[in-house]
């Protein structure tokens, strides 16, 4: 059986989409043209590091510019466009801001 820890890795205590902190969603559920703030990366080790090095550090604000392909998204973060597969977007917890 898949355990939750394996799916979301170290640093994330949230199961799927329930019991998320108020106002938080995973990136794959964010609508297009929404600006969000990065709350937590639910991934561990190297992957987490990779995302951080690509500019997805805690608290960074970015815009979702494409989310119409059932999972993979394109975001505009720190001046460049990044495509993230579903495997990534469902592990990035964000908070909307007005």
């Amino acid at each position, binding site marked *: 059986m898949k355990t939750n820890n394996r799916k979301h890795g*170290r*640093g994330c205590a949230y199961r799927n989409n329930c019991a998320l902190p108020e106002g938080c969603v995973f990136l794959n559920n964010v609508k297009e043209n929404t600006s969000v703030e990065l709350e937590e990366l639910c991934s561990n080790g190297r*992957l*987490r590091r990779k995302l951080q*090095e*690509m500019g997805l550090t805690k608290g960074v604000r970015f815009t979702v510019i494409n989310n119409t*392909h059932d999972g993979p998204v394109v975001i505009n973060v720190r*001046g460049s466009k990044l495509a993230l597969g579903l495997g990534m977007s469902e592990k990035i917890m964000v908070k909307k801001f007005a």
Partner: protein
Amino acid sequence: MNKINAVLVGNPNSGKTTLFNRLTGSKHHVGNWPGVTVDKKEGTIVYNNNEINLVDLPGIYSIFPFSIEEKISREYILENEVDVIINIVNASNLERNLYLTLQLLELGKPVILALNMMDSVEKKGIEINLKKLEEELSIKAIPIIAVKDVGKKELLDSITEISNDKTDFKINYGEHIEELISKYMIKYQDYDERWIAIKTIENDEVIKDIIKHDFDEDYTNQITSKKYDYIDGLLEKVIEYKKSNYIGMTDYIDKVTTHKYFGIPLFLMIMAFVFFLTFNFGGIFVEKLDFLFNDVVASFVDNTLVKMEVFPWLRSLIVDGIIGGVGGVLVFVPTIAILFIFITILEDSGYMARAAFIMDKWMRKIGLNGKSFIPMIMGFGCNVPAIMSTKALEDENDRLVAILINPFMSCGARLPVYAFLSAIFFKGYEAVVTFSLYLLGVLIAILMAFIFKKTLFKSEESPFIMELPDYNIPNVKSVSIHVWEKVKGYIINAGTVIFVASVLLWFALNYNFAGPSEFVNSFGAMIGKSIAPIFAPLGFGDWRAALTLLSGAIAKEIVVANMHILFGNTMNLIFTPLSAYSFMVFVLLYVPCVATIGTIKRETNSWKWMFFSIFYQMIVAWTVSMLIYQIGLLIF
């Protein structure tokens, strides 16, 4: 003469390759990094009594070793006497690009910043205060436009003027981390002490072997964040936006290319367009060249040799063996060149990353991710670089699957076989028939990937993270350099491997143990006859077809060369349209060429997977061709 060792480092899509080619001209050679198949490009520039040895490192985002490319780059910089690092950055996207710059600065080696694409900076209405930037980073910053050779002289000047003084550049990581840094500053070889300390705190895998300590992951997060914060602060000081709401072409194009409904049809249309253009446009040249080789050259040489009273066997060897074989391959040079032009344009334009994005959802259904799609497309050109490009895949299992299915993507060398056979058996429908073969290859690749991921290579997570670079109109010079390299390889192959194979085949067909013989009693016939029964259920149990396939394992274009020699104009007697199609399917699916096999061996670093790939492809090829032929017999 003063010798300077320089390395070129930069993000992918920063124009690094262009700058390298422009700086070194044709005076560079491409080799391999020890142990891996990443291209190592090295060139020498003589400038003002200086000899600059320039090494082009792979395009990287970070010197943290995530990928083989990053590992190579980092090791090279750390372990070699590097006098200066030339860090090329896309000046219109400094925020992302300067991250690598900061990492390089922390290494404590001299760095020169080459700010590329200054023209698009201007277009975007960005103004960079270069003086201020130089001051803040305490390095030289040279504005350049690599494709237009702008700033080349200034860059070379600053390389030759570089001093070996260490920069005193430092980022303040905050009280707590700074305290840790000062605690872990140790002398180790000639590495920068502060760098060692930072890497220690980041639990760097390589440094861990030197100092054993397990720090909280949060420190890494803080250090990375601080670097980006530093960049934010820096850019605020040096950059001014003149146009507030600049929306570039890229955003408009992306609206279509990554559109929910239009994205995939557009991609298919592009591929179909590439395919039909290659085929129809290339076909014009094929006919003309075929006439040139087989009628003009062959009869001229034949007549000359008759006049010179050369032995008939030598005449036959030259005309039938060499001109027939090598010429049969050379006629397809234009077709292959056109195909490579399109593939290179697709790669250079930035579209490939979009294709990977829109295909992510579908690739996930077979257990891979969007990134694995790019090597598949590149396979249409040549499987060798395509298999090498799988290095970009982070997951080892995904990578193995991508390598194993790649040979099913029909490469340029197989195109001549389809062109040759379909012109005989499917006149008027050549393009459709050939397209169906490409499609079949893709379907088999997908099916096999699915099976592999379900059985041999189960893995859950396959990360897909990829920058979508700004679209870029491919530069004529860059594309032609690239295409010429490929076409040159094909021509050299025709002159060497195909030449030898043609000569050997000619001898095999004209001799046996007793000396000169008829075709049907020759060595070749003996070999062919012994394996031909295997192919009988596939519709081509003829010994000549079998012999062709055997030699085609060296390189697929040999199949065409051999068919010229073996069959002449008697193809219709041996093949029916159905068996010809079944034959083409077999050529599509059976073992790739020796070059591909060698690449599979190197990339998987395993004999086991190499033999596995040969073996399973034979089985797949045989099974599919057999099914097509047998089912076809029932229908037609």
